[in-house]
Structures are given as structure tokens and as C-alpha cells.
């Protein structure tokens, strides 16, 4: 009776303290690419988790191919030909690609005619054929830990295809990919659609939706806002609906007022663990009231520059000065106390102690000073009052406030906490590395505004980002790094996006 392959009717799902989905209904046609758009915490993943059998809805019904179905487990979903690529891959790292794909559905043979064993040769052959058929080239015999994330994602996709999935769910598939890899993936997804599969893609990246999706459902705080035809809707409208208010892609900013030179990096070279130089004779300086952005493709030495300035890595040669003082041989804490703030790329590993509470994390750079610690003994009330102040000021949302374990918080709120902590810390110089990675538009806009605010207050700011848009939007001065060497440093006004892109590839130097 129904021409929809998937119908979710009036779905409501509650978690303690939150309504993740509130009376959401979506209908998906066979053979279309259907996007679920929404900010972090809008309820996209929860909705799809229910379709994949990981949770059961509190209210509402799910129809698959017109039939009312209760999906009890991911196993059951697989039997209904539903497959899902999770944000966090579920792969066995010391197994080959083929072994990972066949696990649970192993082709068998009989050793000596009667002992059942896994037929790995047959598996390798089958996977090679499968990967060719869908253009997802992989070598079945490669071990997972030796291949990059893009290949791993292909393995996850092949896993679904091996199980003959007809309905493919992708949860934020492009978050971890480089631009080229993203294009490749989008092509694959289109190819899958053309071969008759139905695709559901969860994302908050508008341009990707624009590129591939046929229709797009917009969720905000658990509610379905609208379902749009992608062709006839512009990204600006989508963004506004997703965030629930007017969004500015371009951050308003005044002309910069440059002050004294705050940070000076003088001819530094940094070597990696293997003794190879990853930062080569790099020099630059950042003035008060200036945003200097280092643009570059990932892995060209930019993270090492940040780590050298903050003291996490030692420089092999060269000097670093902060406000005219040589800090090259200072410890990390001495540098913090001298006035360096650091918003690191890896929130979980470097930015926070994940199993500490929010209040403790907010005081992470000052806990050893009064009033947080008096004669070496921690003063809990000071943590709490300071925590309350920052939570309020930076709108950090969590389930319980101060005592919340930060691991349970969303990425956007973790980042708010880190940025709040660093801004509050007394400093003259701030490093932001990939400050908006993995965040949604609303949060990105907010962070960009804060960066500009800090600049206008007279902070010297070093921004390291892989997002070219972010660099172009915020920087007063742009340095482009390639292979550990600065290719150019110029006033942002004098560089176009294309030029920066050229320098990033190491081919822009002939003027």
C-alpha cells in the first residue's frame, strides 16, 4: 500500500532528562538519498539508531517496505537489509579487510573433508569482486591497522554490501575525511543510489547535502522542522532552519588594530620521533590584536609548531620569544604562567581530562594557585563557584553542571568549556588549533565570534586550521605551510582562496 521503503511514524524517544526525538515522522522513498540535517544533539543519530535496532522507540511505529516492524537489534536490522556505517568504526584492527567484512557470515569449507574451517581464500576472492563492483577498491588482505581512515570507511561500507543491505545509513561519514576523500565518498554514495540502494545520510554539512541529497529532513532539538526538496532550497535557508535563527557565514569584524609584537618564532626546526625534521626553519611573529592563521593540508608540520610554542615538543634549533622574553627552554607550566593559552586540536587527549568533572576541567590551568588550592590542599568550593561562573558565561550545557564527567558531554560543549577556560586564563597570546572541528554551524559561528572578540581585546592569536573557509574568514595575516616550510606570509586581503590553495599544495611559489 505504501511506496515508501522506510516510514517512521510519530517517533518519540526519551532519555533521562532529555527528549531526543519528539513526535518525528519521516518517509523515505526507495532509491533516494535522504539527508538528516541538524546540529549536534538534534536527535539525528538517535532516530537512526532506532531504525538500526539499537534502541526501541518509546512511542511511534516503524514501517519497513510497508510492513509494520519492531526492530529489536542491529542483527534484526541486518536481516531486514538495513546497514549502518557508524561514526566510530567497528573494525578489528589486527584482522585483514576480508576477515572484518566476512565476520559473522564466514564462508566455510571442510578441512580433511569433515572439519569445518573458515575459507579465507574464498572470502578474499569474494571481497575483491565486491569491492570492484562498487568501485570501492580495497586489497582484501591488507590489515586494518595499516590502512587509513578512508579505506577503513570503505571496509565499513563493504560490510553492509556484503550483508546485502538495501537501506544504507551513514552517520556523519565525512567528518574524518580530507576534501579529496569526501569527493570520492560522495561519488560512491551516488553510485550506490544509482544501483538501486536507498541512502540515509546524517550530517551537518550543508554543501554536501546540496551536492548529493534528493531530500533533506531538518531536525532541531528533537523536533522535525521540515522536509525540503534539496534542489529548490538554498543552503542559507537550510542553515537557518537547522539552527533555528539567522546564521552568518561571514563573521563581522572591524579592521584590526595591531599593537606590539607578542610572539616571535625565530627560525625553529622541530624533529619528530624518528628524527626527521617536520618543521623546517620556520619564522613568523604575531602582534597584539592580530589573527595570524597558518593554513595547510593536514600533517605538514602545523601541529608541531603549536606544540613547540606551548612547550609540548622541544625545538631542535631556533628560538621562541613571548613579549620579548626567550621562552625556548621554559617548561609548559612556565609558559602557561607567562601567558600562553592553548586550544588544542585533540580535545579528548590534550584539552581535557575526560573522566574528571566539568568544574575540575575548568580549573585545569589554575588549580595549583589560590583560591583553588591553599597550601597544597584543594579548595572545592572555589572550583564550584568558578565553574558556575564559567558555565553561565560561556553557556556550557551539561546534564548536571559542575559535577558532570566531561566524557559524557557533547563535543560542542566540551569545546565551549575549553575555550572558556582559556579565555578566562590571564594571557597575551592564544593558539587555536582546529577550534571548530566536528562542530555544527551554530557552534562554529559562536567560536568565530569569540576569536574575533579576543583579537579586538588586544590578544595576539595564532589560528591553525585545515578549513580554508575558516582561515579566510578570520585571519588578518595568512601563513601557508607545506612540508614543514612556510611558503608565504601575507596580509589576508592580498590573498585569494585559490592562491592559498595553490600554496597549500606547494605549487604557489612562482610569482
Amino acid at each position, binding site marked *: 500500500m505504501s511506496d515508501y521503503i522506510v516510514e517512521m511514524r510519530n517517533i518519540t524517544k526519551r532519555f533521562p532528562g532529555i527528549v531526543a526525538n519528539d513526535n518525528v515522522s519521516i518517509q523515505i522513498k526507495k532509491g533516494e538519498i535522504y539527508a538528516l540535517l541538524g546540529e549536534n544533539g538534534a536527535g539525528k543519530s538517535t532516530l537512526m539508531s532506532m531504525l538500526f535496532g539499537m534502541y526501541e522507540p518509546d512511542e511511534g511505529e516503524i514501517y519497513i517496505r510497508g510492513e509494520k516492524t519492531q526492530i529489536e537489534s*542491529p542483527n534484526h536490522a541486518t536481516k531486514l537489509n538495513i546497514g549502518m556505517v557508524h561514526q566510530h568504526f567497528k573494525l*578489528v584492527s589486527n584482522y585483514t579487510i576480508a576477515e572484518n567484512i566476512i565476520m559473522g557470515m564466514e564462508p566455510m569449507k571442510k578441512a580433511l573433508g569433515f572439519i569445518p574451517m573458515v575459507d579465507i581464500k574464498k572470502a578474499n576472492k569474494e571481497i575483491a569482486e565486491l569491492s570492484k563492483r562498487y568501485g570501492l577498491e580495497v586489497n582484501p588482505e591488507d590489515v586494518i591497522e595499516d590502512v587509513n581512515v578512508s579505506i577503513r570507511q570503505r571496509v565499513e561500507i563493504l560490510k553492509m554490501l556484503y550483508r546485502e543491505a538495501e537501506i544504507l545509513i551513514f552517520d556523519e561519514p565525512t567528518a574524518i575525511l580530507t576534501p579529496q576523500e569526501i569527493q570520492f565518498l560522495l561519488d560512491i554514495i551516488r553510485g550506490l543510489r544509482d544501483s538501486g540502494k536507498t541512502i540515509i545520510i546524517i550530517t551537518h554539512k550543508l554543501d554536501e547535502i546540496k551536492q548529493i541529497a534528493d531530500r533533506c529532513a531538518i531536525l532541531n532539538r528533537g523536533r522535525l522542522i521540515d522536509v525540503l526538496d534539496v534542489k529548490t532550497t538554498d543552503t542559507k535557508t537550510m542553515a537557518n532552519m537547522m539552527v533555528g535563527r539567522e546564521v552568518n557565514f561571514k563573521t563581522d569584524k572591524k579592521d584590526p588594530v595591531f599593537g606590539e609584537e607578542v610572539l616571535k618564532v625565530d627560525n625553529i626546526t622541530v624533529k619528530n620521533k624518528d628524527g626527521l625534521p617536520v618543521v623546517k626553519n620556520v619564522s613568523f611573529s604575531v602582534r597584539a590584536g592580530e589573527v595570524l592563521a597558518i593554513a595547510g593540508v593536514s600533517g605538514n608540520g602545523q601541529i608541531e609548531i603549536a606544540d613547540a610554542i606551548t612547550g609540548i615538543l622541544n625545538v631542535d634549533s631556533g628560538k621562541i620569544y613571548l613579549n620579548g622574553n626567550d621562552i625556548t627552554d621554559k617548561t609548559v607550566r612556565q609558559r602557561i604562567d607567562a601567558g600562553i593559552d592553548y586550544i588544542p586540536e585533540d580535545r579528548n587527549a590534550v584539552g581535557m581530562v575526560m573522566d574528571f568533572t566539568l568544574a575540575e576541567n575548568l580549573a585545569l590551568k589554575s588549580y595549583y594557585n589560590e583560591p583553588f588550592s591553599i597550601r597544597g590542599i584543594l579548595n572545592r568550593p572555589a572550583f564550584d563557584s568558578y565553574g558556575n561562573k564559567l558555565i553561565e558565561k560561556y553557556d556550557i550545557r551539561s546534564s548536571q553542571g559542575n559535577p558532570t564527567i566531561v566524557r559524557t558531554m557533547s563535543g560542542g560543549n566540551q569545546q565551549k568549556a575549553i575555550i572558556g577556560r582559556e579565555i578566562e586564563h590571564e594571557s597575551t597570546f592564544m593558539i587555536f588549533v582546529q577550534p571548530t572541528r566536528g562542530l555544527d554551524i551554530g557552534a562554529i559561528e559562536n567560536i568565530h565570534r569569540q576569536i574575533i572578540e579576543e583579537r579586538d581585546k588586544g590578544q595576539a592569536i595564532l589560528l591553525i586550521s585545515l578549513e580554508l573557509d575558516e582561515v579566510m574568514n578570520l585571519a588578518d595575516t595568512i601563513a601557508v605551510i607545506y612540508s614543514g616550510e612556510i611558503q608565504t606570509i601575507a596580509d589576508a586581503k592580498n590573498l585569494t582562496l585559490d592562491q592559498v590553495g595553490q600554496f597549500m599544495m606547494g605549487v604557489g611559489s612562482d610569482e
Partner: protein
Amino acid sequence: MNSIIIDGLVFALPLFIMAMGGIFSERSGVTNLALEGLQGFGAFTGAFAAVMIGTVSPDMSPTAIMLLALVFAVVGGVLFSLIHALLCIKLNADMVISGVVINILSMAFTEFLTKLINAGIFNMPSNKFVLTVTDKITVPGISKIPILGAVFTNLYIFEIIIAVIAVVAWFLLYKTKYGMHLRASGDNPHALDAAGINVAKTRLFAVMISGAFSGFAGMCFAYSISSSFSSTIYVGYGYIAIAALIFGNWNILPTFGACLIFGFARSGGYKLVQALEMPSSYQDLVMILPYVLTLVLLIFFSKRNRAPRALGVIYDKGAR
């Protein structure tokens, strides 16, 4: 020379089967420090069964009794391992603590039971079950080959059984569906779960295998080392087996190599004491050789080796 090989194997092979048990458990993700306790409890059940059978039917041959004792030891080991499985898999207890507790529990419990049973059933105030000496096998023909022949000389029947089990275990772990699931469970249980396979069940079987193998090993030690069961069975062989499987990088073949080294170090040490005509108290010095070797090898091996990634991590569906 021959006696070094013969005695070395008698020690190395039970150690090896116990280490294999540890490999099964740990490759599935369950840390198993309980090997010591499992082998002790297995030896207790086996020895108790042997003494009972010997009393009930005195005509039965010692070899048949030993075979039955081994079966009972396996059952005892499996039963005792269920405690570890219950704590680590079902109740999400810390695996290291569970293992250590089981070792202490096993030692106290079997010591108590042995005294109780001896006093109650056999009317003998003793803290050990005495086992009958069994025949050993010498393979005709090949045992005449110089040096290598010693491998086939004066074999306990359990040594042959261990060799057969080892081949089966190797096949099970690396070539079958279950083995594949087991190893996946120790690397990324989420992946296994996503493939529709029950992680808890996979781990439960793995722990039971470790119980069976350890129980078997304990019985072998009871026969070969003291011809009896008493609390002297708890001298740390379980920990040496763990050391062996770590040196063997959680793989069966290299672990066999490590067990051989331990076995020959021990038997070679005894030989040395005899050859140098040292006073017998120096035998005790030799007893520490495997442990010293453990320490030395640890220094060299621990850097290179890699434990299963999910080893010791309680499987929690929700965690990422």
C-alpha cells in the same frame, strides 16, 4: 643430556597447555591471572577423584586412574573458571582483582577441603592426596635416535595428550569461525557485536577453555612433580605460564618456545647442581631459575610485544 630433555619436557608441556588456556582467555579480552588457582583447583578435583577411585576399585590400573583424574581435573578447572567468568563477564568486576582473588580462594579452599576429606572420609589426618606412580612410555625405535630420541623416552601419557590438544587448539584458535570470533573479541568487541555475535558467550567459552586447560595442567604437575596433591601445587606455575604467553606474544607457537626454555632452564639447573656436586640445599637455588629467567626475558620482550587491544576492558555496549 637426555635427562635434561626428559625432565624439561615433563615440566614444559603442562606449562604450555596452561599458557594456551591463558591465550584463549586473554585473546578473547579477559585478563586471566587466575591460571594458578585454576590449575590448583583442577589438581585438587583430579587428585580427589583419583584417591576415591583407587579406594573404590583398587584393581584399576594406575594409568586408567590417571586418565580419569585428568578428566575430573578438567571438569574442576572449568567449574572454578566459571567464577572468573561470572565476575568478569557478567558482573563487570575488575579482571585483575578477580584473578588474584580466585588464586587465593583456590589455595585456601582446597587446603581446607583436603584436610576435611582426609579426616572425614579416609580417617587420616593429612593435608595431601597421595597419587600412585604411573608407567611411562618409551616409543620403540625413534627413542634410540641420539639426543632427539630423548623426546620420545619416558613419556607420561599426558605429554602425548597435550601434544594432540595443542594441535587441535591451534586449529581452533586460528582456523575456525569460533577462533576468529574469539580473537576479534579481544581486539574490538564492538566489531564482533556489530557482526551479530554474542560477545559474552564468546568470552565465556574462552574462559572455560582456560579453566579446562589449567585444570589439566595442574593434574599433570601433581603427578609429575610431587606424586600427590597438596598446597605445594601453588608455587607460581600459573604465573610462569602467564609470563610464557606474554613472551609468546599471545600466540601459540612462540609460547611453546617460551615454555620449552622455562622447562629446560629448570631441568638443566638441576643437572648443574648435581654435576657440580653442590649440597642439596642448592637445589632450592635452582628452583628460582625459571623465575629469574622470567624477569630477564620480561626486560627484553615486554617492549616488542603487544597485548590484545581490548584485553582487560569490560565490554560495555554503550562505550566507544
